[in-house]
């Protein structure tokens, strides 16, 4: 039986709400009956991520209700907060001011307008080519040559991670695939679910089977990350009916998403450590500061990879 588009959307949304509601209730129940402080810390980590998962429900419901443009705005704001956090961590000089003004007030809006308009030929190259060539010029005009290359590189890196990569997430919804018209938002949801489940399952598995904590993220263990990744790939495979892919293709792509996402968390942890981010500054206390970079790390690596693979193998016309 083939469900209509609306029926599929509602069924999926209901399923996701039920899933996260169960997880939230389960997490609260575990937290209330555990007294061991070490275990409690693990469960706390897990609950924090479960709460974060509700954002996916919000994003998807919004995209469903208001369309792709609303989704693009949500991700543009996410990019803005991520870049703001990146800049706060980076030692910048006052002569970098104009480059940063351009990054925030020109590059972010232009990139997302290009994504919203579906101009693939432009948004794929705007930051890696044009901004990459323009920013060093702007910074060279200031005649401040101290650590010039280092400063240029940092601004470009911040833009690539927090704007270019993240902007490929809403672009997933606009990939045109023959026989899958109008279902772009579902594909985006599938992608976000796989990313989020791999994070949740990795933390959950680490809490249960943790042996060697990862150096990049003490909330995960080596065994847990591996097990969580396999489990998330399996979940992605089971949800193949949401996608234009066959089940084994869904399995391969979910595997690619999980792998890229894991690399993203690894790389961003190193970036933060090298910039000297204070743990407590990133994790607690400051509400928005915690979110942006920390939550987008997996998405920002997985989105461009998944986008490219899908366009290459399935895209009909762009």
């Amino acid at each position, binding site marked *: 039986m083939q469900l209509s588009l609306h029926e599929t959307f509602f069924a999926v949304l209901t399923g996701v709400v039920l899933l996260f509601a169960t997880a939230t209730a389960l997490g609260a129940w575990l937290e209330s009956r555990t007294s061991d402080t070490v275990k409690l810390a693990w469960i706390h980590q897990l609950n924090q991520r479960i709460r974060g998962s509700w954002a996916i429900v919000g994003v998807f419901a919004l995209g469903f209700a208001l369309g792709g443009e609303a989704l693009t705005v949500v991700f543009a704001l996410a990019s803005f907060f991520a870049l703001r956090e990146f800049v706060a961590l980076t030692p910048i000089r*006052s002569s970098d001011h104009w480059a940063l003004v351009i990054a925030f007030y020109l590059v972010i809006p232009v990139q997302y307008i290009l994504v919203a308009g579906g101009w693939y030929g432009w948004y794929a190259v705007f930051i890696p080519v044009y901004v990459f060539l323009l920013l060093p010029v702007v910074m060279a005009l200031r005649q401040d040559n101290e650590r010039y290359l280092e400063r240029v590189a940092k601004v470009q890196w911040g833009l690539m991670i927090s704007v270019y990569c993240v902007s490929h997430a809403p672009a997933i919804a606009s990939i045109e695939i023959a026989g899958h018209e109008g279902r772009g938002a579902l594909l985006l949801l599938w992608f976000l679910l796989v990313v989020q489940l791999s994070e949740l399952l990795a933390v959950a598995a680490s809490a249960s089977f943790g042996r060697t904590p990862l150096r990049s993220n003490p909330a995960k263990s080596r065994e847990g990350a591996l097990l969580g990744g396999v489990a998330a790939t399996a979940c992605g495979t089971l949800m193949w009916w949401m996608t234009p892919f066959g089940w084994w293709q869904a399995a391969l792509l979910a595997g690619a998403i999980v792998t890229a996402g894991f690399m993203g968390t690894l790389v961003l942890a190193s970036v933060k450590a090298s910039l000297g981010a204070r743990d407590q500054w990133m994790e607690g206390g400051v509400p928005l500061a915690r979110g942006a970079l920390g939550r987008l790390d997996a998405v920002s690596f997985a989105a461009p990879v998944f986008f490219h693979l899908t366009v290459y193998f399935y895209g009909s016309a762009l």
Partner: protein
Amino acid sequence: MPIKLLPPLVLLARLLVGAYPRWLGSAPSANQRIYFANHSSHMDTLVLWAALPGSLRANTRPVAARDYWGKGGIRQRIAEEELHVVMIDRARDDPAADPLDPLRAALHHGYSLILFPEGTRNPQPLPGPFKAGLYFLAQEFPQVELIPVYLDNLHRSMPKGALLPVPIICTIRFGAPLARLAGESKEAFLSRARAAVIELAEDRR
């Protein structure tokens, strides 16, 4: 009812610089206080005021220069009607008038004050030397708590001469009340007050 311009401005400041308060040595309280902070950008007054809990804002008045805020137009309207800025004359047209008098009046009325004792913007990470006003007010109003405040990162958001602020996460760190020591000289008090702000700059919590 006149349109309020301050709430959208506060929202904009939040979006641009976060303005996250960290209460390190003191807790928010309705006690009468003088918050004294480093002054590194045009956004300082708004950002510090916005970092206070909503219930304290109505009773807390920023002190600012008349030659910047009193030029008329929208800026003056916001300063007078919504921020209730205590205007201070830097130019001193009338040599007999004490520029601190409006501050004294506000303190007598029970208001808390936000003061930038450097007297002018200094777009550096650490504050310059403090002017004497804080000392005199501390002497005359011994019941008022003196809270050092450090505004982090704002000088990076808007360096001198910049037209647009760059978004960056700023924290506003509130320290422990500055004690008053009997018989302390003006210079010793001012350098101790400045040291209290610098100490917050180094406190990375």
